[in-house]
């Protein structure tokens, strides 16, 4: 059963009197509980793709369906984790996580329970009354992820969530995400420009090319992930596995081709 379905999606932005095709005829199915990563060079429209699923942009052509229903504006069935964390600075950790639950009309007692549960899941218990600026970047993003999980959405959309973290924190967060996905499996659409990150986290990796943004390849990581037992190992160990190295090299090659290939549409000078 497919949970997220992109059916012939194109997105054209007006730009300086002319038009700019950000995405051209992209079709993609993400099955229920699959973790799908999208990689591509900057300007390939990967963030636009996520925003279309989130309902923050409207496609110029095609339909986005989530759980079978056509997307028509943002909704709490599709939680977004932003690169800038997007925590409300004037709200405490507790209030930030409770925000989406309040919007859904979850009663107070149940709200408190969910806030505690997901803070604990993210290893952040005890920070309830802190303001975001009192936390490190990594901790802030944990809160943002807890906020997204707490509304128990059908799908999670993550837009380079670890892009603004330092390398060590990023690695820790990736391991954390693997752990959480195992405890609380969700359909995830994960945008990144990190090839290793994509291979390490995803069941499937989609490679996009730019000008216009289009799918060039889809790589199935799942069989190798399971065969080599990545989810039971530390990340540095996984990166030494032959299967990991092979996939990483393959995706790099695809990305290089995507960047070298002449544009399908002449780029405006």
């Amino acid at each position: 059963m497919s949970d997220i379905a992109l059916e012939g999606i194109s997105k054209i932005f007006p730009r300086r009197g002319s038009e700019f095709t950000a995405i051209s005829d992209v079709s993609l199915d993400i099955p229920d509980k699959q973790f799908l990563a999208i990689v591509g060079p900057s300007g390939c429209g990967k963030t636009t793709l996520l925003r279309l699923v989130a309902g923050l942009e409207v496609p110029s052509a095609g339909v986005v369906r989530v759980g079978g229903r056509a997307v028509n504006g943002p909704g709490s069935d599709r939680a977004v984790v932003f690169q800038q964390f997007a925590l409300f600075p004037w709200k405490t950790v507790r209030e930030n996580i409770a925000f989406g639950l309040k919007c859904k009309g979850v009663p107070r007692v149940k709200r408190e329970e969910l806030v505690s549960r997901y803070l604990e899941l993210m290893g952040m218990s005890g920070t309830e009354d802190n303001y975001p600026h009192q936390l490190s970047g990594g901790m802030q993003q944990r809160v943002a992820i807890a906020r997204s999980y707490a509304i128990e959405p059908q799908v999670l959309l993550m837009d380079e969530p670890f892009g603004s973290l330092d390398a060590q924190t990023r690695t820790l967060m990736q391991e954390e995400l693997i752990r959480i996905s195992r405890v609380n499996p969700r359909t995830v659409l994960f945008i990144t420009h990190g090839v290793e990150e994509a291979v390490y986290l995803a069941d499937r990796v989609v490679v996009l090319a730019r000008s216009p943004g289009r799918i060039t390849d889809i790589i199935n990581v799942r069989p190798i992930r399971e065969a080599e037992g990545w989810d039971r190992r530390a990340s540095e160990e996984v990166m030494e596995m032959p299967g990991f190295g092979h996939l990483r090299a393959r995706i790099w090659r695809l990305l290089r081709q995507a960047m070298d290939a002449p544009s399908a549409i002449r780029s405006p000078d």
Partner: protein
Amino acid sequence: MARPLSHARPSRSEHALLSLGGATVFLGVWQGLAASGLVSKFVLPAPSEVVTAGLTMAVEPFAGDTLEGHMIASLGRWAMGFGLAAGIGVPLGLAMGYWRLLDAMVSPIFEAYRYIAPLAWVPFAALWFGTGIGGPVMVIFTGAFAPCLLNAYRGAQLVEPYLIEAARTLGASSLRVMAEVLLPGALPSVVAGLRLGAGLGWQSLIGAELIVVSSGIGYVLVQGQSNLAPEIVMAAMLAVGLTGLLLDVALQFAESRIKQRWGYPP
């Protein structure tokens, strides 16, 4: 010791001393000028006469009420007009920052309106709402409305777009986005606008009272003029200035408290 005096920032106590010194010199020159007999007391009453007139009015009714009574009448009108301006201006400003359609509809009308001096509304205020309470309240409203709306509008535009998007993807309604994201996000700008609006409203009020009412500080001014009592006019002016100053100090205090409550630096 040898610091350049003109650029040095005075300390708190130095600042207080300088303020007091300035006021003393000003009052001294004024008193001296009045006492010298060079100018008639009908042109420039001495500060001592002004203070006496003010103190007398505080106990003996003038123009129908004591000075405090008039002041309370004025403050009541001001509070109503300002409250109305804040209550309409802030939500409308935030909404204009959120919906471009509303912005496009309201902005041209608003831009023309905000160059009309509050006093220009006096004839219509009197015509539509009478000279009792409604008319003056409307004049205050027209004075306070523009900064309330404008600051909320500009503040809302400065709120990070991703915060608004985060709220919407978490399922927030437009009303909730305005109350829980735009308002707190725009808060420093909003409270600055409220302070400006309060001051402008107070200024407009006195103007309105000169023309349309039979109580309040502005009315005392007019009555002082027709009684050929310049010291009463001056005392009323002084009361207006001091009250305005007190209002601003109170609002400054409220501003820092509100900002603190929402996690902004004071």
